[in-house]
């Protein structure tokens, strides 16, 4: 008996030693985007073959990133590379973010704004830029007698949408807008992405980039666009509470709706309608000067290098990232396989983006339109978003008043901001 126990103990000790005595420098990337897991795994393998530095890529399940990150950080082999979503996410992890200012990485950014800074310290580097707006089916628009060029501001968007809604039987659609579902799989499009519009205009008017107390100057405009969405939809406003992201996408794909608020990441599915039949329009909310407004472009994905990792692991991680954004293999993988639009100056020529929505955004910017920045990373918390979402849902269903949205937006912002500062 004793012998067996002694043997078992010895075995455990051996395993423990084996586990700690691994290679000198290694990279461990905790990846956020499940849809790109396979590409990262392949890229990691190529890098290891080339340099001998082991690269582990682990992908967190959708919606479980923070949880996974918290758990992984406890381990002795913790992630050397992880990501935060912007200033609010950084607040949680700032102690774990290595200052990248001394490395070569910030130098590759096309714009300094893509570095996530805290004072002079560069805590994160954006690695993908995304764009959203109102995806429109141009074939159906043409059938109704319009072209995308007819939609220049909120007034014209409203006129077109209401006309389509009124003639929906004749046009064979269920509504102008695909359902603005408030199920958890879809509500972020409105409590986060659409809510960015009034925040953007308020920040712009006040000349600020973040605030502890939002005034809600443009909430009437938020109401206008929300009213337009819910009253010209494929279903009754009261049913939106249970509509999912899939519902909304399927309505658009089945050509039962002309407009669908979403972003570049949806290109993979909406391209089924044919590139020539889809376009993306800015989200107009009847704000002054919106004729010059472009699409909403920004990022909420920042790479951070773990400051508590061993220095050699940190160096290995920085070297890996540099390789990813400068080597042919890395650039090909990011640009062509992951379909990322990156903020790096190295992605030119054959590595330039091909996603039509992205090209459209670039074209609009070139024509002098102002891209709308992503301000939702400055939203005080998930709690705030949920509060706004609940109020929007109740308002749509008629069980709540618009005042509740205003209160969740303005008072909720202050409460949540004060709680975290």
């Amino acid at each position, binding site marked *: 008996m004793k012998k067996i126990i002694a043997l078992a103990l010895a075995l455990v000790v051996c395993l423990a030693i084996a586990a700690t005595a691994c290679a000198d420098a290694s990279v461990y990337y905790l990846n956020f985007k499940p849809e790109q897991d396979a590409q990262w795994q392949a890229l990691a393998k190529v890098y290891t073959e080339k340099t001998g530095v082991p690269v582990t890529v682990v992908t967190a399940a959708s919606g479980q990133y923070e949880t996974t990150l918290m758990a992984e950080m406890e381990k002795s082999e913790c992630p050397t590379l992880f990501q935060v979503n912007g200033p609010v996410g950084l607040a*949680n992890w700032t102690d774990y973010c290595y200052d990248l200012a001394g490395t070569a990485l910030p130098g590759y950014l096309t714009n300094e704004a893509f570095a996530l800074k805290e004072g002079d310290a560069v805590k994160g580097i954006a690695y993908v830029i995304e764009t959203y707006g109102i995806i429109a089916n141009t074939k159906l628009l043409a059938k109704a007698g319009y072209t995308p060029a007819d939609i220049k501001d909120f007034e014209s968007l409203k006129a077109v949408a209401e006309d389509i809604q009124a003639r929906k039987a004749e046009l064979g659609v269920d509504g102008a807008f695909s359902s603005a579902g408030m199920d958890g799989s879809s509500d972020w499009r409105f409590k986060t992405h659409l809510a960015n519009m009034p925040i953007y205009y308020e920040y712009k008017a006040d000349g600020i980039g973040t605030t502890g107390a939002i005034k809600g100057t443009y909430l009437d405009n938020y109401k206008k666009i929300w009213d337009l969405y819910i009253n010209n939809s494929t279903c009754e406003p009261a049913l939106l509470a249970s509509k999912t992201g899939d519902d909304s996408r399927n309505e658009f794909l089945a050509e039962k709706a002309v407009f669908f608020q979403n972003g570049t990441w949806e290109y993979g599915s909406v391209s089924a309608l044919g590139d020539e039949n889809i376009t993306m329009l800015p989200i107009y909310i009847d704000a002054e000067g919106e004729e010059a407004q472009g699409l909403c472009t920004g990022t909420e994905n920042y790479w951070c290098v773990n400051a508590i990792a061993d220095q050699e692991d940190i160096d290995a991680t920085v070297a890996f990232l540099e390789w990813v954004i400068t080597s042919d293999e890395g650039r090909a993988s990011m640009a062509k396989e992951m379909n990322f639009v990156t903020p790096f100056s190295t992605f030119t020529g054959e590595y330039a983006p091909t996603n039509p929505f992205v090209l459209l955004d670039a074209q609009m910017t070139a024509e002098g339109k102002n891209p709308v920045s992503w301000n939702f990373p400055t939203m005080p*918390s998930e709690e705030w978003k949920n509060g706004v979402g609940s109020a929007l849902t109740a308002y749509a269903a008629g069980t709540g008043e618009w005042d509740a949205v205003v209160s969740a937006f303005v008072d909720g912002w202050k409460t949540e901001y004060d709680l975290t500062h």
Partner: protein
Amino acid sequence: MENAIKKYWPVFLLPTLAAFIIGFIWPFIWGIYLSFHKFITVSKTTFVGIDNYIKVFQDATFVDAFWFTARFTLVSTILINVIAFMLALALTRGLKGTNAFRTVFFLPNLIGGIVLGYIWQILLNGILTNLGLPLLALDAKYGFWGLIILMCWQQIGYMMIIYIAGLQNVPGDLLEAASIDGATSFQTLIKVKLPMVMPSITICSFLTLTNSFKLFDQNLALTSGEPAKQSQMLALNIYDTFYARSGAQWKGIGQAKAVVFFLLVIGIALIQLYFTRRKEVQQ
């Protein structure tokens, strides 16, 4: 045999004990430790004293969630036990097809809470839509009754099985004596069967009470606390505190809530056990 047990007890006991300590006792102690700290990862913590506990009781959503949970627990415990007991009575009478019915009633218990939650969400929303009423996520009243229906549907079968076992163990001579003494079937039920199945009632009410109080999956899937947290139960409230907030202090507050929650569950369960145990009789 006796000797063998004396000699080898560690072989049988230690694996379970080790699992229990690793999986339960140790995390529990850590949980209490963390509830006095501010932290993001548990290896870097800052001591904050009882701050977290003070904030727990200042948080109106926690108190609201407590009352919602309490109401839910009361209604579901009574409904589940009464209906399960009646079904058990009906299915111990030797009716034709008893086994088929028992199986059918037990089946819902085999499906996971999250799945059930989503299925019932679709079903109930369908009904509410047809009746022209607000959906589950829009009115806490429907959310509440939706949860009750879901829990009844899921739990009744399981409790029924326990009651059936209890009823089948009521000694035949007692029932015979009662009938010879001229007791009506209602009197037999109240004076003989009920006292004899009291142990089953203890265990069933304990299970339904704690299950309802700790309910999480079904709450998350069916209403997710909507509208505006009005249908949020304690476990979901704790989860939200821990994960839906940014900033280090929230983890500690969530942890403190969990400790308070633990004490509540223990307290309520002990009170319930005390009262139902008292009614148990020796055979």
